[in-house]
């Protein structure tokens, strides 16, 4: 499905953020990436759809190497990869419906998009998804009038609107309260399972990761230091990921 080979990234020459990452993601299930702040989790996620340009390595997705794709082909590939952001990144001044339909922008010409002439089946699916994420009736509300949890629901719906074959999520619950976080994780897991979309998700909440993920990847210092199912995530492993031991007590 997705296979990352020898991926490295340095923003400043000689100071790599990611070093030689190798990662295979299966066609199903949720892969959670955990690790201390500043260890390159966000950079890794953003390298996959090239919101950040990798320095070296290969990322194979649906049989093509994303790293070497020219711009037009990259846009085609991005349409197949949905993304959910930590701070939702909704277009604040647009309505919920417009935000959802922006997930279809890769498939609709700009001229039609500017005039809001989206295909009727896209609009029908947007309404259906609004119901799925529990926001039926919110279509005409402006995104900036929603609460954090509601915004992230729109964020998820926008990503799913793309009909992606891979979902990336960059700390989607870090700006939410604990209860809403669980609800959002539940929603994301359910939607991904029903539609058989694999998810790669960054998380800083280890308990939440253990609860929802099928597989945990631990990163430290820009390298993968653990890769296995949640029940193998022992205190010893957490110590190698986050360093120190005092915080575990």
């Amino acid at each position: 499905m997705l296979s990352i080979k020898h991926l490295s990234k340095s923003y400043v020459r000689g100071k790599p953020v990611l070093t030689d990452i190798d990662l295979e993601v299966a066609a199903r299930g949720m892969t959670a990436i955990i690790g201390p702040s500043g260890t390159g989790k966000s950079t890794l996620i953003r390298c996959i759809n090239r919101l950040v340009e990798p320095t070296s390595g290969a990322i194979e997705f649906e049989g093509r190497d994303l790293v070497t794709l020219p711009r037009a082909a990259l846009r085609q590939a991005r349409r197949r990869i949905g993304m959910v952001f930590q701070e939702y990144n909704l277009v604040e001044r647009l309505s919920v419906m417009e935000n959802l339909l922006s997930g279809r922008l890769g498939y609709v010409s700009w001229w039609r998009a500017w005039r809001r002439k989206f295909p009727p089946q896209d609009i029908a699916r947007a309404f259906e998804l609004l119901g799925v994420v529990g926001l039926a009736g919110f279509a005409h509300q402006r995104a900036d009038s929603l609460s954090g949890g509601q915004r992230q629901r729109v964020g998820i719906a926008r990503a799913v609107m793309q009909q992606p074959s891979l979902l990336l999520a960059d700390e989607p619950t870090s700006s939410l309260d604990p209860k809403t976080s669980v609800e959002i994780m539940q929603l994301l897991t359910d939607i991904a399972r029903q539609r058989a979309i694999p998810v790669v998700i960054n998380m800083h909440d280890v308990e939440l990761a253990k609860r929802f993920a099928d597989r945990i990847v631990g990163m430290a210092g820009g390298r993968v230091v653990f890769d296995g199912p949640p029940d193998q995530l022992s205190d010893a492993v957490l110590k190698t990921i986050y360093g120190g031991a005092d915080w575990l007590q």
Partner: protein
Amino acid sequence: MSTASAPPIAFRVNWWHRAGWLALAVYVVYASAQLDVSWDRVVTGLHNTAHFLGRMFPPNFSRWELLVKGLQESLEIAVLASALGIVLALPIGLCSARNLMPAWISWPMRLVIVGARSFHPVIVAIVFVKAVGFGALAGILALTVASIGFIGKLFAEAIEEISLKQVEAVRATGAPFMSVIGFGVLPQVFARFIGFCTYQLDSNLRNSTMVGIVGAGGIGGTLFAAFQRFDYDYVCAILISIIALIMLGEFLATYVRAIFIEGLTFADLFRRRERRLTSARERHLEDD
């Protein structure tokens, strides 16, 4: 043996500041002497002014056809120049935003904006009168240049302040460049853009009454001719009409902003301001 030491100094003297103020004062005195500014001349001038103001009243509206024709032309110049200026300023402003465009596009576009802003509209109008001859076309072109400069600059600055997170999210969907602009960038700056446009329309209306002085059409020409013929009562009629036109323009601009930015309906405009704002807010809540 104790000596009474001086108390510590709380405020240090800055000799550079003192020198600066002194230099300014010296220059003001020098400039007044150079330009022969004296109290006597102000007193004589006040006398003349009183005489001239006396002759302005009552205003003389007998040549109202000429007046209306001039006002109409000014209004047309202002509206056409604003429309043309807005249409041209949109792409120019967008292209000169440094956070969206590579330097080889943004720098030439910034130069265009700087060029458009360098000269006062009257100077530009003189150039266009020489180029395309007397009449409204020169005025339209001059004010279009001014509009491009003003709206283009402010629009570019507004774009440079947008949240790139929203843009990133739209890019991540695989949207083509123009769709990223339409969904990620423009929604963030649209309200401010409307604001800039209405301010520019307001300013064009003011300037369109002036470019006529250099022969670029509008009421300004009539005003200048009346001054030269010492028709002060007619001058007064023209000035009153200009004030009315400007006030009307400002009134309209305020309401255009209200409709686009505060999201009011046309009916709201006829309610009182506080009620208007509450009703807009209530409608927002009803949507929940």
